[in-house]
């Protein structure tokens, strides 16, 4: 009997290991382990994080949201991050995003653009839905081996399907080496990405534009029209 109990314990150990999951991540290009990004923002359109001209605080929230806008063809949002950095202090949270988007639309005299924000402990269903509809999410990001410490950061999530969740970090956007672009997407298990969105506050924050993503590349043009 005792042996059976010990044997059960022996079998349980690998299960425990499996439950912990893979907390590692791999920096790679837009294709990794046979998987492609859902939203492929070209290197030259990726926006590097800056500090506010007002107080020096980080503009990662606004950099991420503008990148997601460009990926959805929202050209009217181009320049928003820089405008915010010129006129406002840095740092972001959901209500502040509402405020600065409204201010931009008023400043530019353009119509508001529909968007969505989520705060909570269960980001997986939301991220899956955003990916399924071909959009890019902006996500809180609390840790990465790149930093080696806890951070309070916002990044983009250009893919959340199959095996991987992917982070496009505005502190590590594509850089040109010679005449080639080197891209640095961070690929990880989807569960690990969800975990990283919650580190720090215990709550994930997701932003997504609700306008349509760009049309897919054309296939099989009709023979008659």
């Amino acid at each position, binding site marked *: 009997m005792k042996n059976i109990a010990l044997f059960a314990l*022996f079998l349980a150990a690998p299960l425990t290991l499996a439950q912990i999951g893979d907390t590692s991540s791999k920096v790679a290009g837009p294709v990794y382990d046979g998987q492609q990004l859902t939203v492929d923002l070209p290197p030259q359109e990726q926006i590097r994080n800056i500090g506010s001209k007002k107080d020096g605080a980080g503009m990662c929230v606004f950099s991420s949201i503008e990148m997601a806008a460009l990926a959805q*063809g*929202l050209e009217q949002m181009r320049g928003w991050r820089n405008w915010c950095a010129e006129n406002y202090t840095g740092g972001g949270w959901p209500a502040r995003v509402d405020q600065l988007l409204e201010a931009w639309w008023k400043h530019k005299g353009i119509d508001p653009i529909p968007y969505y*924000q989520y705060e909570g402990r*269960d980001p997986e269903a939301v991220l899956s839905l955003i990916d399924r509809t071909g959009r890019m999410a902006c996500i809180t990001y609390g840790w990465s081996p790149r930093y*080696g410490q806890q951070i309070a950061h916002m990044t983009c999530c250009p893919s959340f399907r199959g095996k991987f969740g992917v982070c496009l970090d505005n502190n590590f956007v594509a850089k040109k080496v010679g005449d080639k672009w080197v891209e640095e997407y961070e690929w990880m298990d989807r569960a690990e990405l969800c975990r990283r969105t919650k580190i*720090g506050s215990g*709550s994930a924050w997701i932003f997504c534009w609700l306008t*349509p993503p760009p049309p897919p590349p054309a296939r099989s043009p009709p023979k008659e029209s």
Partner: protein
Amino acid sequence: MKRSLFFMVGFALLTLPLIGFSRWGPSGCDLASAQPAVVGNPSFRWVMRPDVPDEAYLYNGNSQVGGWSAATQKYRPIINGIWGAPTDSPPIAPPTNLVRKEPSVEEKGGLKLWQLDGVNIDKLSKQEKHHLHSDQGKIVITESDIQPLLAVLADDSKKLWLSVWSKDPAKRQRVVADMRADPALWKWVQERCHLWTGEAARPDHFLEKDRDGQPIRAIDGDPTISLQDSRGVELWHDAGYKVGAASLQDLRKRDPDYRPDRTPGPGGLTATEANVMIPAILLGGLILLMLPPRKEDP
């Protein structure tokens, strides 16, 4: 007895990497440190591994109770088998012969504090919140479940793409105006299509090119109008819009779900047509039923 010992050793070997010898990252656990008094206690000792030269593991007898990283200069206790929050002060001074691996330039040298804390996490809600902002700029729904979002995006993924490309915004807007002029057609556009006519609907826009700068579709007229299904298959392609608004009726019929009697638009049966057609079909069926059966050949 020997067998029990074998299982116990096996179990210990399997679970040891969970705490003692795994390189540690944040566990997401904010448990308060509850270390027993260790200063001067001889049962506490540091253990090092040659293959992880920048970490040391604190043991109380045979149990690991924490770990020290020379790279981050942080100590983390293990409380009930779980890594606790990192602190600056280990219970006893860590070994001095640890290799302090310098972070790479990319990891540390180029990063400033402002790059690490651009989100005010204390202002994030601990409760589930979904905010949907309409194109009027107002929050239309704030609820604690995903249903409102599903209602918007789930249907969205099945929509067709109706695109109008031109360098000239006025040409794109002219086609949109023709669509709007026909309420039934406009209803179909809104219900069934993603309409792509914004500033990015230009042949030279980056979204219209692949990574090698090659066009991802044929934009061979000004404007070019295209209807695509959700996989990208082109159902309609009009280079130049030479026929004008009348062509939009044919375009609508390329909707794979097109039903003359159900799809909104002028191609559907009008009430008058239905009044004539339905009795005619019924009458035809009745006549067919009344025809004498065909004689079999002998």
